[in-house]
């Protein structure tokens, strides 16, 4: 006997239990035990040679793993892959002592707890006790999530143990979920970057004057715009169609021509205006429902944006993108417009338009 130490060494135990072992005949049991030994021998290479002790157990085998809980888990996963025996594997961590003899005898709490965990496990699955999870987490905190609480079991000594599912399948599902979420978010970021790049104006290239790839005989229509400054708020209707609330709506684009603008707000008297909008013309509508002042007529803004001179001779092959007045505006407003999906007519000559 080694000199008695005040504390027993703690080790991990993987208990491989053959399902319904006791109900089988001796020949069957002998065959299964032999097969299980082969399974264990096949899975042992995940551990170092001085890390494991294989012991005989009443309904299977147990492997004591020294100072390597992750190794024990990997061993269990590997051994659990066997489809012929489908051992139910219980993992525990705790005191294991050795009684010298020929052959030596191991005993201790961890062996009992592992047996209890194995008994609470379905064939082909892996379970772990809380002590095992704690031991694993101490060394590899990230593996905490791999073990999910699934219930409790009572061992031969009548003690209850928390049981954690430790299947490779469960663990794999969790880590792959994590992995794919990360990938998706990353793709999202890159995708957003792509969108930004696509909608960004190209640097001005003076030599190449772009032209729409549509038939040049059709005169280009440049929409006009109406800006709103409504207090406190109002619904904007243009030609009988609801366009949104202002605020936040500030500006809408309208095709050139006559338009009936109506601004409604609850029980207030709606403000109406008839506008004749020319190409690229901009009107400003200001109205305060609360102030009893008579509604102001829309005024034509001072700024009037006109279409840039077009060069009809440009070859379509040279033009990737038509520069419309739209694209001269700020990046963020265009970015938001992309998502607002307003029903303004697509600027002729825009990509895909």
């Amino acid at each position: 006997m080694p000199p008695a130490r005040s504390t027993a060494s703690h080790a991990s135990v993987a208990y491989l239990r053959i399902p319904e072992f006791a109900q089988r005949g001796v020949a069957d049991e002998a065959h299964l035990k032999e097969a299980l030994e082969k399974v264990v021998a096949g899975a042992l290479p995940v551990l170092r040679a001085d890390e494991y002790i294989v012991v005989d157990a009443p309904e299977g085998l147990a492997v004591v793993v020294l100072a390597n809980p992750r190794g024990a888990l990997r061993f269990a996963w590997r051994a659990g892959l066997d489809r012929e025996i489908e051992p139910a594997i219980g993992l525990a961590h705790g005191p294991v002592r050795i009684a010298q003899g020929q052959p030596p005898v191991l005993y201790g709490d961890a062996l009992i707890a592992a047996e209890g965990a194995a008994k609470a496990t379905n064939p082909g699955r892996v379970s772990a006790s809380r002590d095992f999870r704690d031991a694993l987490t101490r060394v590899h905190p990230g593996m905490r999530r791999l073990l999910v609480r699934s219930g409790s079991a009572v061992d031969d000594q009548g003690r209850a143990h928390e049981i954690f599912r430790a299947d490779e399948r469960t663990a794999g599902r969790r880590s792959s979920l994590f992995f794919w979420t990360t990938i998706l978010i990353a793709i999202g970021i890159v995708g957003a970057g792509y969108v930004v790049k696509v909608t960004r104006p190209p640097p001005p290239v003076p030599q190449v004057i772009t032209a729409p790839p549509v038939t040049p005989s059709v005169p280009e229509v440049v929409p006009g715009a109406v800006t709103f400054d409504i207090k406190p708020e109002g619904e904007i209707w243009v030609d009988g169609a609801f366009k949104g609330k202002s605020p936040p709506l500030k500006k809408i684009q309208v095709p050139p021509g006559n338009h009936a603008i109506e601004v409604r707000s609850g029980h207030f008297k709606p403000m109406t205006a008839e506008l004749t909008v020319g190409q690229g013309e901009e009107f400003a509508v200001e109205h305060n429902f609360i102030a009893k002042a008579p509604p102001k007529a829309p005024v034509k803004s001072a700024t009037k944006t006109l279409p840039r001179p077009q060069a009809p001779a440009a070859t379509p092959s040279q033009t990737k993108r038509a520069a419309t007045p739209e694209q001269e505006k700020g990046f963020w407003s265009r970015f938001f417009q992309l998502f607002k999906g307003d029903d303004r007519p697509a600027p002729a000559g825009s990509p895909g338009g």
Partner: protein
Amino acid sequence: MIDLPQPDPPADKSEHVGRYRLLKEIGRGAMGIVFLGEDEGLGRRVAIKTILASMDSEEQKGYLARFKQEAKALGGLNHPSIITVFEFGDSNGIAYLAMEYLEGKDLRDLIASRKLDLSSAVDVVAQVCDGLAFAHSRGVVHRDIKPGNVMVIEGNRAKIMDFGIARVRSSDLKTQTGLMLGSPRYMSPEQVLGRAVDHRSDLFSVGLVLYELLAGAPPFGGNDVHQIMYQICNARPAPPSATNPAVTRALDIIVAKALEKDLDARYQDAAAMAMDLRAALPEVAGAGAAPVLPPSELERLNTAVAAATVVIPIAGVHVIPRFDCDAALKRLADPRGSDRRRMAPSAEPPPLLRRWFSDGAFLFAVGLTAAAVAAAAFIATS
């Protein structure tokens, strides 16, 4: 507990018991003497069991009752694996039992001399099981199966003897539970604990005998009765193959099943055990006779077994010698260096930073940052 026959002054040649002439004393137990006798009428040899006269009357009464019990138990049992009883009688106040005289050796001698090879041993135990199955079917529980009570005669035939403390169903003899009878070394846990004993108790004892035959040493060693009894109730012995590599896996399992402490997990009837033993026989026969180990090696093994079994802890499990685990065993028995820390019970949680790093959160952050950088670079290169 060992009742070796003592050389005794030869009985009076002219002494007769009933119609049998006593030739010589062949055995002596605590309470009776067994003589070799001769049936003068038939000219056949018989064994005559009598009561030792030197007992006080109270003891004698008890023994007489048991004696009758044996006669009654045996009288109804006619089986090739059970000793045959010819007559139970009373001659001049001496009760006697005339039985078949068996020329052979009992298992105790055979184990000591290791004359029995593996397949013969298995065969003998299977025969014992046959005999027990028959006795059990007649409601007789032997309760004292031990190597000394199994005789192996010519042709490797086994005979169960000494039904002295056998329990017969609807017996008029009060062999109350709680009174310990039998040899402690071959008792079942329920016998040791004074619980109700049924036929499965015999199977435990057979398991012990089988173990000893296979391994060459009893599973529960030590010379102290209490130590043995404690282990009978609590310890799980090493499989016999640990001592004798020629023992097959099936035999290991049969032994383990017979030595189950839980009655319901044990063999439920002797016939099933006999069947399993016979099924295991071809494999043993194929392996040839058990390797005869040199005496020194035997001695070492036996002492090793004895040393090991003395300290078998409750719920202990045995290292499987097929796997080479010596290095790990050394580490476990005597942790050195960093092992002292790594194999110590510890409850401290890991440092926060380390937790983050290995949590996957770090990877997640790296992944997203990489994606963001890629997106930014993509935008910039227009």
